[in-house]
């Protein structure tokens, strides 16, 4: 990954070691607004995907729980418990 480290000595050492810089530096300069808009769509897409997967799982889990609870209640009634 090609990140910018504020410490030039650190950047030089890493370049000499041929190791990728991995620091996630905070934004200090205005980035290209067009590129940011495109990236924002990917960000929204990722979060929508996370919420959709979690919501779908929660929904199926609650449906399965409700169905089994009803089944247990019915079987207990039939057995006279």
């Amino acid at each position, binding site marked *: 990954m090609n990140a910018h480290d504020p410490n030039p000595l650190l950047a030089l050492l890493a370049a000499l070691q041929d190791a990728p810089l991995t620091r996630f530096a905070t934004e200090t300069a205005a980035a290209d607004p067009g590129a940011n808009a495109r*990236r924002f769509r990917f960000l929204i897409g990722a979060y929508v995907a996370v919420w959709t997967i979690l919501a779908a799982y929660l929904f199926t889990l609650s449906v399965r729980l409700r169905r089994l609870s009803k089944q247990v209640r019915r079987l207990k009634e039939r057995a006279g418990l």
Partner: protein
Amino acid sequence: MDRTVPDRAGWQHAHFAAVALLMTASVVVVFGVVPGERTMGVVQRIFYFHVPSALCAFLGVGLCAAFSALYLWRKDDRWDLLAHASAELATLFCTIVLVTGPIWARPVWGVWWTGEVRLTSTLVLWLILVGYLVLRSSAENADQAARWGAVVAIIAALDIPIIYKSVEWWRGLHPRVLRATGGQGLDPAMEKTLLLCSVTFFLLFAYLLGQRYRLGLLARDVEVLTHAARRAAASGPGAQP
């Protein structure tokens, strides 16, 4: 442990409320508080849900292997129910990792997927987990499902150190920020945000594990009651000898 399904509705609601509150706080912090990353821009914010999901997937696999080992040792079906629940959640969170990873990679690396070791080993983990669930559902009885599942769970756990250390053992494109050294780690604000999101996801995992375990207990109760009803019908006054 009690053999019947425990009724802890109050605790469950409180737990769910805490998860919902923390999830809301996480979204607010991720989108409105934490500073952006200089090189990747806004898309780096995927990191705050991608990494906690990966940690939850690892936790799920680790718990599944541990519960499976306990089942093989103790032969108590409660450990198997917990192992099954952990595996299902590990699959869920591993799916999130495999969906959010390529969405992050596309604008940053220019490709959705590469043959990088971390990506490939994570996909292998997901395939093992899906295999675990398919294998269990195709077993002839509960004991066979538990034994087969336990073996696969232990194999899945062996993949975790490979995924975790892959960025150190094979230098690839995947960033190495959690265990980066020499001042190359996370920015403090990003570190705190990641911590908040990780706590939120671990609480969500715990909530889902409790609910999934309850589902397993209910399924077992249905099986026991159905067998009892069949036995009663067979030994009833109108039953054939």
